[in-house]
C-alpha cells in the first residue's frame, strides 16, 4: 500500500525468551511515520520487552529488525553503532529513571552534551525550551527528588526529546502517577502526536488510546493477536482473547478508563521496577 506513511521501524518474527520463559513469540510489527501506535494487553504479555527490543536495550533471540527498510544487524554491533541506533528512539519509562545526582536541566542536557557533542551553552538553551514545552522551566535548577511524579515524567519526556528522536517509545508512562497527574501527561503526549511525533505507546488507558492512536495492537502471550484502527479493535474485536480482555476491563473499572491490572487471565501483575 504505497499511499500509507513510510515505515520507520519494522520487526519480523521477533522472538525472545528469558530462560524457559518465552516472552516474545514471533512479533511482526511496523511503526509508521507520524503515527501513534498503542500496545495493550495483559501484564506479562511482553509489551515492555518488545519496546526494549526495538531500541536494543534487550537483544532478541531471533527475528529481524529493520530501520527505514535497512536490516539492523543487532547480533554484532559495535558500541558506537549501538549508541547511534538507540538514540534514534527516545524512551520514557513507567518509573521515570531520572538521574538523581543531576539537577533537572542537567538531566536533560546529559545526552546532547555527552552523546551528540552539543556545546553546553547551546544544550542548555535547547533544554530550557524543552522545559518550557513541558511546562517546567521554573524547575530547571531543582533536584529530581524535589519534583512530583507528574513533574518527573515531564522531565523524562523532555530528556528523551532532547536527543531529537525520530520515534518515541513510551512504556506505561502514566501507570505510576496519581490520577490527577495523568491527564496532564496525556495532554502533553496528545500535543506531541499532533505535532507529528512518531510514537509507540504501551498503555492501559484505552480511552487515551482511542483518542490518540492511529493503530492499536493487542498483545497476548508474546504475540500481537489483533491490530488495527481503534474503532475496529475496541468496538468490533474478533479474537476471543481480546473480547474476554475488553469485557473484564470494562467490568472492573467502568468509566475511569483504567483497567484493573491484577488478575487478568489469572496472571499476577509483575512489577519490574522499584
Amino acid at each position, binding site marked *: 500500500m504505497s499511499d500509507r506513511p513510510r515505515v520507520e521501524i519494522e520487526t519480523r518474527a521477533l522472538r525472545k525468551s528469558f530462560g524457559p520463559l518465552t516472552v516474545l513469540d514471533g512479533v511482526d510489527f511496523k511503526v509508521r511515520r507520524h503515527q501513534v501506535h498503542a500496545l495493550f494487553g495483559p501484564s506479562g504479555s511482553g509489551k515492555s520487552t518488545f519496546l526494549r527490543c526495538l531500541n536494543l536495550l534487550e537483544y532478541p533471540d531471533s527475528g529481524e529488525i529493520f530501520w527505514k527498510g535497512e536490516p539492523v544487524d543487532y547480533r554484532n554491533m559495535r558500541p558506537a553503532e549501538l549508541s547511534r541506533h*538507540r538514540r534514534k528512539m527516545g524512551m520514557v519509562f513507567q518509573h521515570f529513571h531520572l538521574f538523581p545526582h543531576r539537577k533537572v536541566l*542537567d538531566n536533560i542536557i546529559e545526552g546532547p552534551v555527552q*552523546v551528540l557533542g552539543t556545546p553546553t551553552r547551546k544544550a542548555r538553551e535547547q533544554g530550557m525550551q524543552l522545559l518550557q514545552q513541558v511546562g517546567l522551566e521554573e524547575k530547571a535548577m531543582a533536584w529530581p527528588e524535589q519534583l512530583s511524579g507528574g513533574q518527573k515524567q515531564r522531565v523524562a519526556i523532555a530528556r*528523551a526529546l532532547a536527543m531529537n528522536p525520530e520515534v518515541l517509545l513510551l512504556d506505561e508512562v502514566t501507570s505510576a502517577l496519581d490520577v490527577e497527574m495523568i491527564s496532564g501527561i496525556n495532554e502533553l503526549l496528545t500535543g506531541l502526536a499532533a505535532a507529528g511525533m512518531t510514537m509507540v505507546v504501551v498503555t492501559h488507558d484505552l480511552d487515551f488510546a482511542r483518542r490518540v492512536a492511529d493503530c492499536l495492537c493487542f498483545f497476548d502471550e508474546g504475540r500481537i493477536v489483533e491490530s488495527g484502527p481503534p474503532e475496529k479493535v475496541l468496538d468490533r474485536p474478533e479474537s476471543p482473547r481480546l473480547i474476554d480482555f475488553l469485557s473484564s476491563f470494562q467490568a472492573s473499572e467502568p468509566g475511569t478508563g483504567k483497567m484493573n491490572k491484577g488478575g487478568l487471565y489469572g496472571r499476577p501483575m509483575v512489577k519490574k*521496577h522499584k
Partner: protein
Amino acid sequence: MNKLQKTPGILSLVLLACLALLPFRVAAGASDMNDSSLRLAMSGAFQPFSTTDAAGKLVGFDADMARELARQMGYAPQLIQTDWAGIQAGLQTGKYDLICGSMAITQQRLEKMLFSLPYYVSGAQIFTRRGNDNLRGSRIGVTEDSTYAHYIEEHPDLFPQVSIFTYGSEAEIVAAMNTDKIDAFVSDRIVGGFYIRQGAAGDIRPWGDLLYREAVGIAARTDSSALIRQVNLALLALVQSGTYEKIYRKWVGTTPDLKLLFSAWGDYARHIPRSDQSIRPAAETQQPVFADSLSSMLPLLARGAVLTLLLSMVTAVTAMGTGALVGIGTVSRQPFLRRVSNGFIWVVRGTPLLVQLFMAYFALATLINRLLGFEAIGALGAAFIALIVNTTAYNAETLRGGITAVDRGQWDAAASIGMTRSKILRRIVLPQAFRDALPSLGNNLVVLIKDTSLVGAITLIELTYVARNVVFQTGQAFLPFLCAAGFYLAMISLVTLGVKALENRLRRSRRALGESI
C-alpha cells in the same frame, strides 16, 4: 660430677658474696605471697629460653628454671606467657610475682626492679656471613625489644655508618638475612647459636668477640626483696645439686661456663646495693625520672605519628583510585577482567594484613630487588604495597556493592539516550554508587588508620611501635599508650568528620560529585 667441687676458689668467693647478700631470714619471703603458688612470667617467644610446645605449654631453659626454682622455694610454679613489650608493666601491676624471662640486668632496670643473682651469662654477639669482614655501611638487624640498637648507636667506631633495622623476633631476623634485607645482626650469643644450629641460616657465623657481657637475672618488684633472697638461695641449691647444669645442657646444648657465672655473681655482689632503701629509687628522684621520660618520649611519639599519618594518607588516596578500578573490574563485561578482579578481592580479603606485610617485605620486595640488582623496595615500599593492596580490595568490594545497588533503570535510561557503557559507568552509575558507598568507604579508611599499627612488624617505626618501645625502655606502662590512643582517636575523628561533611554535601548538592568524577 659437680663443677663446684673443682673450683673451690670461686666457690668461696661466691659463698662470701651470697652471705653478704642473703640474711638468714629466708622465711620472711612468704609474706609476699598469699597462696602457695608462684607466678613467673616469660615471653614464650625467645628460643631456646622460652617457647611453647605443641600443646601450648611453656618450655625452654627459662621455663624449666622457673619450675625448678619455684619448687625449690616450696611453691607451686605457675608460668605466665606475656608479651615482652608489656612484661615489666605486668610485673609492676601485680599480674605475676617474678619475671623469669631472660631479662638482662641493667642499671636502668635496676632503678625499677630487684634482680636475683644472674642465672646465666651471655652477651651481645655480631653474626654475619662468612667472609664479611667489615661492618662499614652494613645493614644491621636487631629485635625491636633489645638493647642492641642503643649499643650500636653508641658505638659508631665499631659500627661505622651502619643502618639499623628492627624486627619482631630472631626468626624474622634470620629470614631477613636469608632474603638480603640485612648484612649482619646483633643478637644474644646463645640465641644466635641456637638459630645457627636450627640450620635456618647456614652460612651465618659469630663475628668477633662478645660486644659486652650480659648477666641475666630474675626480676621482682622493689618491694619483694625477701622473695629475691629466696630465689637466690634456690638458685644456689640448683647449681649445687647439678640440676642447673642438666637444664642448661638440655636447652643450650653446651656445658654451662660456671666460672663465668660465678664471676658474674661476684659483680652482682659488688654492684648491687645491699639494702632495700638504696635499691628503691629515692622518693625525691622519682619525680624527675618520670618527667624526664615523659618529655623525652614525646618527640619519639611524634615521629611515629608522622609515619602513621603518611602511611594512612598516601594509602587512602591511592587505594581510592585503585579500589575504583578493581570495583569497576568486577562489573566489567570482559569475563577475564571480572574473574581477575573478583579473585583479587577474594584473596586479599581472605588473608590477614600481617601476612600480606610479610609477603610484600620478605617475598615480593626481595624478588624485585634481586631481579633489579639493587634495593628498589625497602621496608617503607613494602608497607605501602601491602597497605594499598589491602585497602584496594576493601574499597573495591565496597564499590562493587554500591554499583550493583544502583537501579537497573539508571542503566536503561542512560543507554536509551545513546550513552556507551563506559560513559554510563563514569557519569551515571559510579557517582551514585560512590555516594551510597561513602559511609562504608569512610569505615575502610578508619580500619586502614588502625591497621598501620601492624607495619612495625617489618621494621617501620610507626606510632604503636614507638609506644611499645617507650613502654619497654621506660617501664611507663600507660602514658605512651594513652598518647598513641589519643593520636589515633584524633586522626580517626578528623576522618569521620570529613566523611560526614562530604556526605552532607553530596546530599545537599548531588551535582558536586557528578561534576568532579
